[in-house]
């Protein structure tokens, strides 16, 4: 069965996110000083062939923890649905 996963990888809350900080600072240039606390991560989509949803979940989790996210710097969450 093919499942589609939608993964969000974000910098850990405790870490400085230089990119988010610079983008936050630029909001006043486009007239939106109300926008604060920008943090920038990655959105990854993929498909996985698995017996069932639990197995798909485990495989995606492994992909995230081994490669897609760097656990020292990032956390991730994902959703899975049948393709």
């Amino acid at each position, binding site marked *: 069965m093919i499942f589609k996963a939608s993964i969000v990888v974000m910098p850990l809350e405790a870490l400085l996110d*230089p990119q988010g900080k610079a983008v936050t600072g630029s909001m006043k240039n486009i007239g939106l000083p109300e926008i604060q606390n920008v943090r920038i991560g990655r959105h990854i989509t993929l498909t996985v062939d698995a017996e069932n949803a639990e197995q798909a979940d485990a495989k995606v989790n492994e992909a995230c923890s081994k490669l897609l996210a760097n656990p020292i710097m990032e956390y991730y969450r994902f959703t899975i649905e049948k393709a």
Partner: protein
Amino acid sequence: MTQTSTTVETAQKLGILPQEYEAITHILGRTPNFTELCAYSGMWSEHCSYKNSIKWLKTLPKDGPHMLAKAGEENAGLVDIGDGLACCFKIESHNHPSAIEPYQGAATGVGGINRDIFTMGARPIAQLNSLRFGNIETDRTQWIIRGVVKGIGNYGNSFGIPTVGGEVFFDDSFEQNPLVNAMSVGIVKIGKTISATSHGVGNPVYIVGSATGKDGIGGAAFASGDLTEDSKKDLPAVQVGDPFQEKLLLEATLEVIESNAVVGMQDMGAAGIICSTAEMSAKGMHGMKIDLDKVPTRQADMQPYELLLSESQERMLVVVKKGEEKIIENIFEKWDLPCAQIGEVTEGGQLKFYYLGELVADLPAESLVLGGGAPQYEREYTEPAYFAESKKLNSQSISQPKSYKDVAQYLISHPNIASKQWVYNQYDSMVGTVNMNTNRPCDASIVNIKESNKAIALTVDCNSRYVQADPETGTAIAVAEAARNIVCSGGEPSAITNCLNFGNPYNPEAYWQFVGAIKGMTKACKHFQTPVTGGNVSFYNQSKIGDKTIPVFPTPTIGMLGILDQKTWQTGIGFNQAGDYIFLLGKNGTGDIHSSEYLYSFVGIKNSPAPYFNIDEETSLHELLKSLIRNSAIESAHDISDGGLITTLLESSFVKRTGFDITQTIQERKDAFLFGEAQGRVVVSVQKSHLDLFNSIIAQHTVGVLELGKVTNGEINVDGEKWGQVDDFINLYENSIASRLR
């Protein structure tokens, strides 16, 4: 003070020895509270106090005719380069952070060393780095290399200072513990420097740059005893560098110094606020009153000890002249940088830290710092067995290789010798438009000093294999090689900075290597009149291999500064045109193959003495080279180092895709002639029309000279054997590292 009291157990958790805890209690005349003990744990750490190295560091030569600020006096040494300008330079390690997170570890290392330079008022104009990795074939090493190179590149490129030189070396001992040493070089008008000092009662104290988070306080947090699973999540395992912020901080800092409103300034590195407040106050013999709750924070609920110890990047402490606050604030606002007054200078030498009105730490600044109350230890050392063992090697028992061409091809593709362009092409080497090597590669990096006749020469050198073989001689060789590289490029050696990477100082054999290195460096620096302007010590560099923990190859990296009074003295390594004569200058016929890449890697003998080295012959060689260069007698000069004569000849050929036809006319074993790494030798090329001039200069010196042959249009001929075309060797040289990291 109502802060938690402490015991000797708390101290131990913070890495403070029982006798140190006793000393602290004695200094204060009472039991320190937790916040205060954290302050000592940071300041009396190896990193800040140099407690296990300072006794030996003091023996290094620090004085020279051009020294404006000696080692230890400021964040970095300061050398007079003439024309009213001074050069400020320093090298520093970021080894352990790079082992955990190579990208951020290396990036923040670059950030830290640059702050050391511009906090003194000098604008950085060049960066170099010296890197050591494990076996290039392993996944772990490849992960580290990719991360470190990308980290150095992204930070340095964005910060906008060219990376003009460096070295990369591989050995299994660095498998778990890479070495990442970064050097920054700045230029400042004499008299325009700013000191890391604090004085003038009532002068306001500012923190500027990034907000403070819980970075680098893990050790203290674990000792605090109130760490919960939830609060653990708030502890960053790595520090994140922000080169954009650093660039703004650079421009704002230099502008602030120009305004004359600043008393003193120091960047924040290890031990953050406590270190900068203590060192500046101790130097200026004043105290400070600091309100920690006024420090801008990135994370909520930061405790006083966290604020004191945080190592968040891109921050500075600035003491401002009272009444001129607005000038400073306007400049930082112009550059969109946060800037907050957190306290003021007080009489006496006491540091008083308040949090929400409550006194949370009350410490004599002097008691915290190196040169003041920080401990200084003698460590024992013993000669390891391998050293005596290495001297028993009889190289006569080593048979000659079957094919010399095969060995040459092996060496030119060896990762320690092959082109590092996969690495350095990821660094912006040309921003600033001062890199004179881009179109004329030299043994040292030549950096243009705009609007003057001068250029400076920079190099980082250390053959870790030689230092492992013999710490004293190996380190003297590192200094000599640095000087030789500068002389070959047309410069005059001026001063050095060092980065001393060693194993555990409590391991007597590792400490023996450290002591030997200091002795060798002292001898060589005195000899070449290149004082040590400063640097850094990194202990505890070790790898666990199998069930044994072994120190990394000892690596006292030498960063040397040289001066070219005339830019036109710049001399490249490249052969110029076919028909030019090739000579080998220096001691010939030693038959030495000790500690060569050939012996170590190709033959496989890992334990042998350091290569042939004679410091007096080295100086004579340098004098001859200076004379040849200043009289325009030679076309190129390239020293013999890793990979021996054949590597030098090939590298000289690669620049303009020429070749060479050489013959061995001296009696010595042929592998030593081609691949030996005896020190104090340089290959030069001479135009036919300059032969008389060349010979007349040679005649005035006592240096050995051997005519090797001639430059060709691309053929490589050795002793009548045709080895093929230069392009075949270039392909091996250029693709060896890239193909492994693809």
